[in-house]
């Protein structure tokens, strides 16, 4: 095989591998992703049984601790739509009223049932993070 053809073959091979990898990447990421939404979005159009990543702020005064569990209400960052959340698991240090949180789970009935240990709280200052998952 003359060198030019060899090089062409190598190029074709490399390109096909690249396409395959890209395909795998795209497929696995879209398949494995959880959709992020806000309380208002979930209330409007949630598919029950589907896993979502809910983001919003903790409603002041809505936090109740029972044993290992936590109940609180979450609202849009700017808005009043609220959703009750049922959570079990470790609660990160910065968690309190008014803080922005991210929690994964499903909407069941009118309540958001969270996955264990999936609560993440954003710290109001610039740098730190506290995660329990």
């Amino acid at each position: 095989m003359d060198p030019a053809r060899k090089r062409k073959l190598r190029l074709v091979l490399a390109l096909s591998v690249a396409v395959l990898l890209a395909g795998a990447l795209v497929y696995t990421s879209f398949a494995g992703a959880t959709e992020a939404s806000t309380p208002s979005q979930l209330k409007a159009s949630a598919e029950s049984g589907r896993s979502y990543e809910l983001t919003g702020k903790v409603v002041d005064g809505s936090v109740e601790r029972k044993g290992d569990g936590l109940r609180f209400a979450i609202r849009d960052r700017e808005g009043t739509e609220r959703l009750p959340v049922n959570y079990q698991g470790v609660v990160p240090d910065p968690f309190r009223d008014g803080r922005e949180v991210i929690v994964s789970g499903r909407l069941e009935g009118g309540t958001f049932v969270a996955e264990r240990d999936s609560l993440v709280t954003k710290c109001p200052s610039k740098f730190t993070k506290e995660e329990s998952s």
Partner: protein
Amino acid sequence: MAFAGTACLLVGLLTALYAAVASIAGARTGRRELVVSGRRAMYCLAALLIAATAVLQSAFLRSDFSFKLVAEGSSTDTPTFYKVTAMWATQDGSLLLWALLLSVFSSAVLFLSRRSLRDIAPWATAVLGTLAAFFLALMLGWENPFTTLAVAPQEGAGLNPLLRHPAMMIHPPMLYTGYVGFSIPFAFAIGALITRHTGADWIRATRSFALIAWTFLAAGIMLGALWSYSELGWGGYWGWDPVENASLMPWLTGTAFLHSIMVQEKRGMLKVWNVSLIIATFVLALLGTFLVRSGILQSIHAFGASTIGVQFLICIVVVIVGSTALVISRLPHLRSESRLDSLLSREAFFLLNNLVLVLLCVFVFWGTFFPLISEAITGTEASVGPPWFNAVTTPLALVLVLLTGIGPVLAWRRITSSGLRRAFVVPAGVTVATLVVLVALTNAEDRVLALAMFCLTAFVLAVVGQEMVRGTAARRVITGDSWTRAAAGLLARNRRRYGGFIAHAGIAVLFLGVAGSSAFLQQRDLRLSPGDTFRAGGYELTYERATARLGGDGAGTGAPIAFGAVLTARKGSESFTLHPSRNFYPTRDPSKGSIGRYFEGEATSEVDVRWGLQRDLWTAVRPDISQLEGPIQEANRKFADSSGDVQAVVIAAIAERYRTDPPPAAFRSIVSPLVAWIWIGGGIILLGALIAAWPTPEARVRRVRSLYRARVGRELSGA
């Protein structure tokens, strides 16, 4: 005082712009004076920024709360170490740090290369000057660190307690040194492209900076991971958070760059690849700086929209577009000088290693920006989590470690097949032996991927060991030295090669730790009352009693109240105690009550870890203070206006109540096998990098002597 700082920034901005303009003018007209003047302007800029930093630091140390930054980030009771480091806990302060590091490094490289790279250096100065001007403009326009408050408060807000950890305070400067360090080779690459001097000169001049930048970036990443593991309440060291990824990506491409420049130096190949790689690394470094400060990704670090996000984005776009256009226009000058002789050569494997690293970077990039990508494509924002990242990066990591073992064995151009066979016999044997031993004696075969990684680590260590032994033997043949002298000589004369090999060994050890700790982790979350016992990872742990401590924080973070637990752990004849606790910091929010505010501020988990080479036992506790709500509210009412002393007594009483009658507390214990090897591996990598970067004495002496000779020649001819 603050005005002096702002003045420094303003003059600095003008100086930086002048440096850029003068250098370009000098380069185009050929007038040396302008170039020299531009260079000196850069020195001045460094001096100005050092002065500005000094002003800010003195404000912190004096607790001068008229400075907005000091009022927000420090307080009179913040320990001195954290007062000094608080500067870069804020957006404004970290911009200043970036600019400071940039100007100092630029000055250093320009000073060191002032007699060489005649054509390229002015353009590099221009690029660096423009970059510095950008940061200064950002500060002056939007985020001035020297902003003052109309009324200086009596007391500052104090440093966020989560940041009160030595590792966390060294972590930003290290990362920034890494990011800024890569801007130097970038600037010289641009200069090389503009002047069409695309040989290896720009690489030789900036290689040390690239290596130093890489080292600091690696150290910064490791410190972040270490901090996360030992400070935060979740017990992990890497969460694939966007900001973590943002620091990893330039490191990946930077590693690729360090390898591929060797190919260009030796064989004149991969010129286009190298310039593209350094451009990508620099863009990723800017992106890393930008991601922390913008709100475009849902990260736990980023929050809301920041005021300088758009400007950064524009800067990044300009850099990308400009550099790409430049590379394309100079393609004819970037042709390779030779071809690949054989696939069994170092060049070929470096190329392969580059491919794997860049692929890793692409995967991490994809996952990090997936929310934006998915929103653009499907309209809904979705994100991928650690499971996806781990699944996608693990195969590549395995291949990477394999390559770190094969690379050192090869030779440039081509290795003989007999040489190859000789080289792999011993390491292959060691690997197989490791496999057999692990399967027979441990339960490692439960996790195939981890087992594969363990064997690969053995492979790499065997290769590195063999290379050292054989190299020493070869040297002995030439010099006739004893074994130790030959080995020392080998290392000294071939610092880059053997430093690199040691770094490879470090990588293998690091991945050993990663594989062990992620595959064989045992985590338990429980609620316990004093006296309860549980088993974790072969240990029997007992919650002995609760603790409550006021003041006298051992870790030096200044926490007034700490509730915790004492646990005893037993395993066979081994027995020790653990003291995890939770620090409570007061808040200045008056709505929480005068007593309650001590409990309602920030709280951090003080983890207790029992380090071990075989495994770590990590514990954290989350005391339940909800039952203290009653007494606290009562105290709020009764003692609202009492003096500090009385309040202290009341708090002591409440604390005592917790200690004597604690409700069940939430405990988390994690047993991570081999996790200590991650840090050890990291240390080995840094050691290898240090050896590789250490300048050889002979080169220095020869360089100085030649300069003297030149001077003599010049002066004689002038006389």
